[in-house]
């Protein structure tokens, strides 16, 4: 500890992130910047002379084309439903994971991780088969007199499939968060005369809010960008924003318009995340949640 380094030299520890920073900068930062740059400049056709001028025309078009806002709203709604469904399913599941023995817990972890280990295509085609008219899900619903619910080619079917695919992103941060809660606090509440439900609501739930926020942010942002599931299971009549982006890029070759739409989605998502962050607790809980750190009650 006697070697001194010049003050301007960063701490050697920072060198650890250089490989990751280079990779992200090259494969994510640069393309992202290019997309944004294109979205605020006029289009110069390939092979023609001319310099691109600054313009907001591509953004203006998004708000006036009569379809983008509608699809954005639809995407937000679908993502919100998926998030709530994942929370309702994931919270009790994660809670159970904290209450069982080591062996049962590993089984529960494997179950929830299964979608990660399955190819995205196999998963989506699996849902395709299940959701077809006359398929397993519809026949099951038929037992309860809901046989004419159409799932294939509808937003309902897409929401169902997305909820399953995204469930792990809810369960894992929740599990880390719930696992870190000191259960003796509940005992203390009970010993002071609190009924179980009140103890849960006043003590346990507030302590778990960080994990809830982390899970909801993860699921919501991922759901906003889903492409394969709506493209395979959904209908062209009920496009989500990723399908619109795909169409703009691969069919219309409108890189500038696609860049504008992508930027808009990114900004909307970041704003929502910032808002959820304020409402639900610290953004750091995403990281802390995964690390399984114990937090004290606020």
């Amino acid at each position, binding site marked *: 500890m006697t070697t001194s380094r010049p003050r301007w030299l960063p701490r050697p520890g920072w060198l650890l992130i250089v490989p990751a920073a280079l990779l992200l*900068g090259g494969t994510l930062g640069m393309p992202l910047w290019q997309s944004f740059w294109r979205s605020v400049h006029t289009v110069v056709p390939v092979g023609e002379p001319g310099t691109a001028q600054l313009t907001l025309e591509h953004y203006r078009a998004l708000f006036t084309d009569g379809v983008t806002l509608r699809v954005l709203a639809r995407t937000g709604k679908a993502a919100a439903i998926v998030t709530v469904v994942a929370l309702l399913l994931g919270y009790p599941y994660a809670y159970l994971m904290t209450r069982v023995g080591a062996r049962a817990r590993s089984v529960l972890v494997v179950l929830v991780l299964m979608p990660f280990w399955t190819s995205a295509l196999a998963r989506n085609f699996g849902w395709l088969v299940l959701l077809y008219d006359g398929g397993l899900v519809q026949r099951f619903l038929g037992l309860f007199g809901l046989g004419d619910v159409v799932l294939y080619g509808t937003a309902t079917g897409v929401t169902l499939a997305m909820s399953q695919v995204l469930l792990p992103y809810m369960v894992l941060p929740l599990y880390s968060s719930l696992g870190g809660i000191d259960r003796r606090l509940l005992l203390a509440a009970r010993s002071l005369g609190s009924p179980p439900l009140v103890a849960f609501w006043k003590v346990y739930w507030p302590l778990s809010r960080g994990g809830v926020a982390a899970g909801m942010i993860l699921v919501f942002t991922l759901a906003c960008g889903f492409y394969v599931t709506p493209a395979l299971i959904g209908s062209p009549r009920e496009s989500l924003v990723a399908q619109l982006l795909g*169409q703009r890029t691969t069919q219309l070759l409108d890189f500038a318009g696609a860049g504008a739409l992508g930027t808009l989605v990114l900004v909307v998502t970041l704003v929502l995340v910032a808002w959820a962050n304020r409402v639900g607790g610290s953004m750091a809980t995403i990281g802390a949640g995964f690390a399984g750190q114990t937090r004290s009650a606020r």
Partner: protein
Amino acid sequence: MSHRALPRRRLPLRLLAAAAALATAGTLAACGGDSGAGTGADENEKVELTYVSYGGTGQDGMIKNWQQPYTALHPNVTFVNASPPDAAQVKAQVQAGVVQWDLVSTAPWLASQNCGTLYEKLTVPDVDPAQFGPGVLGECHIPDFAYSLVFAYNAEKWPDPATAPKSIKDFFDTARFPGKRGVVPALQDGILEWALMADGVAPDQVYPVDVPRALAKWESIRSSTTWAANVGALLQLVTSKQVDMQIMVQARNQAALDAGAKIVPVWDITMTSVDGLAIPKGSPKKAAAERFMSFILKPEQQQKISEAIGVAPSNLLSKPNYTENGAKINTFGPANTGKSVPVDAVWWGKNWNQISADFTKWLNA
């Protein structure tokens, strides 16, 4: 191998640019389409052509019936295959000045729209225009095969031919023929033209397409129509009898018949189209690619591909031997007692972007 030009923009960190250059160079090196061969400008020079199509059984058929026989005839020409033929990739390659694809499947309207900018203008040797239908040979694409969309109905729903649908008007007539309709919302297949002709527009008057009128016609059966996400999804709807009539690609109708679906084609007016094969602008192997194009336009190669993957030949001299089911739904054969109308790719190239936007808006309304 040339490297991708970095955008000339000021960046706060030079590191970023260096990282991108490294990453790009690595990717390009890994793709390696050149492997020591020449450009094939000279007929006997060794050349490797990168051929990009839709993959699956279709591209397998192209490999077996076009590429392998061609390499047998010209051992200096070999092929590398890739898929999918994403036009955005073509644009990215052309813009960056790193064209790695030599032959790419392309919708004719797209080749027409970007002719000379994204795709090379073609001078294919030894092609007799008299052997092709009007408007089929494009300035920037060749018709590597033809296909059509066929209106067919489920015979279990309408068993008596006397009272079954007989014209495309009946597809849009839910009062006389109640039931579910299935269609893929693909403008390039002429679905707006279908609607106009059902509305009484004469086949030679459909261009320019009256978009509001066509959409109003579709609107009239919106609640009875299932818009399938792709052809595979539509085929599934047909074979599981979730639609009672459909407008579907010829080859998939054969698949439906083969799967036991009791579908009957209605030979009234049929829209026909071709698949395009194009050369991205700036491909150094253009001459070699054009000689291969000339080969696959010959009647024999057109017959082989048609029999192999259930499409139709673009060369009029080619007479494929279809299976019984294949002949039943062949728009280009004697089974078709109606009229065929080709999709006008040049017109669509000029009008695609606006109409596509209008159509997406209508579809999502």
